[in-house]
């Protein structure tokens, strides 16, 4: 055996140099270009490197690794104090193979035991659809699942017994209000975690009621093996977690690129990594995805179940759901199944930190169902899994529009011609096509909209106007149904141009939060959705002093609208919005209103939008008509 120093003597320096500048070594080091600065490793935990300059110099790191691997008495590294060969099994395997290293092989008990737990058959990338219940979930989420071979005595595997691998911010149990700030500024450590898939299902499908889209990847056993080796290497380090770009979806891409270095995924994501976009990037690679499946949210399963019941069963369901005491001993299996699934949905939504009997499923229902017996005795275990293959009408999220949009528009406003642009980095508005996004919803962050207005008479009077800089605007319109009577809500704020005070260059800042109701009048051909929202506003503008004697004003708006979906690519919105404002303390109140009709026609990635608005202000009223071309990217 060679001593540490002599290992290097026998190695070809050119070979070392070539390996260190090669793609695979750099992938193992998570070599990337940060927003600011030159290329370096993205890993922030120091134990990831053996060389003090390892973060910035792949060649020095390679040499230091060889020395560490070749030293049988090397100090233990990482939380479980492993020999370097065992802490970095993929680096070791790769360098040993490429450099024909002749070293004492260490017995890596922990690593071998861990890897043996998988028995992998394939690897699946899972996408949890957006969820408006929490800010971090509004853009969707991705993680990996290692699909195992069936266990002995079984010819089909049960997904629940697989393990999921995800990248998450280590925020601790009670992150507190600083959570958002820390997540945006990279103040949390991101680490790789592993959880039984059943916990993922309970979390996303049952508690949050989100669809899970499963993309089985086209990877060979050897590729999956190398990826697992590299996943073990991730356990020794952390990555500063940035909510917008270096997030859950971004770091997963490293694992996929190690599995198949020909896949170039990370380079598409610098400023922003939207989970759905990572699926799009993967689907663009020919043959990367073998199969797509959908595991529907619990509410969706429930709604499908209700469709299979006859009218009297549906009536019994709603009657007993409202009052369990009305449960009779003549309920059908169908009704009981639906009641149980509903109560499970309710109980899981209400899970609290402190045990509360409210969160349990009603024993009466459970015993009634068990007593009703084995009408379903013909169901075999093959039909146990209730995952749907993709059906007609279920459009996978990556086929929806890109998450960013740039538009240019032109038209006329109050006898002035105008042209302008709008840049919306994220994410969706009510008129954009729905697929892959929550329908009847809006999630906008950092939108800029500006116009240049031409007076018809004198070009010296043309002017530029910032129409809008939306910091955030979230709208969640929900149909009020017998099944789920839920309220709609809206919240937002940013810089805006106050239309009603007739001041050309005034700008203001506003925040608003409100709610209301939505109704699905028709389900299809066309889909018609009505809504009504009340929003209190608070606004500050230099233009208010004249009118109110004060720079701020408080107001309330009422908006009624109809959203008509003629097809998956053609949508129309008709709305009427009234605004009442006052600045407190006896100042005059003002009123104005706006009615608008818009239609959007999408030929992805392009959208054509026609807008006509009528402004009814205190001292004047006028039209604004615009044609916009948008490009989703």
């Amino acid at each position, binding site marked *: 055996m060679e001593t540490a120093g002599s290992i290097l003597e026998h190695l070809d320096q050119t070979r070392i140099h070539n390996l260190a500048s090669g793609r695979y070594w750099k992938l193992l080091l998570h070599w990337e270009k940060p927003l600011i600065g030159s290329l370096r490793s993205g890993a922030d935990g120091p134990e990831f490197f053996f060389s003090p300059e390892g973060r910035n110099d792949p060649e020095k790191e390679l040499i230091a690794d060889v020395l560490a691997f070749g030293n049988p008495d090397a100090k233990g590294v990482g*939380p*479980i104090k*492993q020999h370097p060969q065992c*802490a970095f099994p993929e680096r070791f395997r790769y360098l040993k193979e490429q450099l024909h290293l002749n070293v004492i092989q260490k017995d890596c008990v*922990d690593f071998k*035991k*861990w890897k043996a*737990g998988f028995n992998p058959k394939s690897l699946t990338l899972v996408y949890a659809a957006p969820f*408006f*219940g*929490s*800010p971090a979930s509004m853009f969707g989420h991705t993680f990996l699942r290692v699909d195992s071979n069936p*266990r002995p*005595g*079984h010819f089909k595997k*049960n997904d*629940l*017994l697989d393990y999921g*691998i995800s990248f*998450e911010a280590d925020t601790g*149990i009670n*992150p507190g209000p600083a959570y958002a700030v820390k997540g945006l500024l990279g103040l949390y450590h991101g680490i*790789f*975690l*592993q*959880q*039984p898939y*059943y*916990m993922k299902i*309970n*979390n996303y499908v*049952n*508690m*949050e009621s989100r669809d899970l889209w499963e993309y089985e990847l086209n990877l060979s056993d050897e590729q999956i093996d190398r990826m697992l080796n590299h*996943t073990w290497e991730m*356990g020794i380090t952390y990555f500063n977690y940035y909510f917008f770009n270096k997030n859950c979806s971004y770091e997963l891409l490293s694992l996929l690129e190690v599995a198949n270095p020909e896949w170039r995924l990370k380079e598409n994501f610098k400023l922003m990594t939207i989970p759905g976009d990572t699926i799009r990037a993967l689907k663009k690679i020919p043959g990367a995805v073998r199969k797509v499946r959908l595991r529907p949210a619990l509410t969706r399963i429930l709604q499908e179940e209700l469709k299979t019941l006859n009218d009297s069963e549906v009536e019994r369901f709603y009657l007993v759901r409202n009052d369990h005491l009305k449960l009779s001993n003549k309920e059908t299996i169908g009704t009981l199944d639906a009641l*149980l*699934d509903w109560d*499970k949905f309710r109980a*899981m*939504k209400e*899970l*609290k*930190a402190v*045990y509360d009997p409210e969160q*349990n499923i009603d024993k009466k*229902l*459970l*015993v009634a169902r*068990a007593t009703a*017996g084995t009408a*379903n*005795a013909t*169901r075999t*275990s093959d039909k*146990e899994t*209730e995952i749907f293959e993709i059906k007609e009408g279920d459009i996978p999220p990556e086929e929806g529009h890109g998450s960013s949009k740039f538009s240019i528009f032109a038209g006329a406003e109050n006898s002035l011609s105008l042209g302008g642009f709008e840049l919306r980095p994220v994410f969706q508005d009510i008129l954009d096509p729905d697929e892959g996004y929550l329908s009847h919803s809006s999630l906008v962050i950092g939108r800029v909209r500006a116009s240049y207005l031409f007076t018809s008479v004198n070009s010296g009077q043309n002017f530029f106007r910032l129409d809008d800089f939306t910091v955030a605007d979230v709208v969640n319109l929900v149909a009020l149904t017998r099944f789920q009577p839920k*309220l709609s*809500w809206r*919240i937002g704020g940013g810089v805006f141009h106050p239309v009603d005070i007739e001041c050309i260059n005034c700008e203001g800042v506003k925040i608003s939060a409100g709610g209301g109701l939505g109704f699905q009048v028709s389900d299809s051909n066309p889909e018609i959705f009505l809504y009504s929202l009340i929003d209190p506003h608070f606004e500050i503008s230099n233009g208010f002093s004249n009118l109110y004697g004060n720079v701020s004003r408080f107001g309330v708006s009422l908006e009624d609208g109809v959203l008509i979906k003629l097809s998956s690519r053609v949508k129309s919105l008709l709305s009427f919005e009234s605004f009442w404002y006052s600045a407190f303390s006896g100042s005059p109140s003002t009123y104005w209103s706006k009615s608008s009709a818009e239609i959007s026609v999408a030929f992805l990635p392009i959208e054509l939008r026609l807008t006509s608005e009528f402004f009814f202000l205190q001292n004047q009223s006028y039209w604004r008509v615009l044609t916009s071309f948008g490009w989703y990217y």
Partner: protein
Amino acid sequence: MNKFSLSLVLGFFVLMGSWAFAYGPSGCGLGSLIIQKDTIVSQTLAETSNAFLLTQFFGITSGTSNCNSNGFVLREKEAEHFAEANMQNLEVEMAKGHGESLSAFAQILGCDQQTISSFGRMSQSHYEEIFPKAESQAPQFIKSVEKQMVNDPVLRSGCLSHII
């Protein structure tokens, strides 16, 4: 030893005991799933939306804990961990006599594929013995299930043959 020290020591043991009790006798308990309701919406509109973190994350190479080793649930804790994490699913599916969680649970308990439907039928017909009136913790629940399995010849041969 004065009264103050004595009560301090006793108090300490009571605290330890109650903490251990909350986690269940085998110490693998998820306890209650730790959940926060902390969203912009819930703070402004007092709506019951859920945002939460399941703290039962298993770090890769963070070593072993009571329940997991570097990411995997310890084999001997698999049944208990699954039962705790899936109690609602199991309650419902055992009443129905079939289901994905029920099948997974049967697998963990050692049943082979053909025996799973019998396991489902058993859980339905012996429902109230498996789920007595009082809310049971996972270890007691598993014991009642195993008791039924031992009493049923089909389940004994299809699930427990590796033990017997």
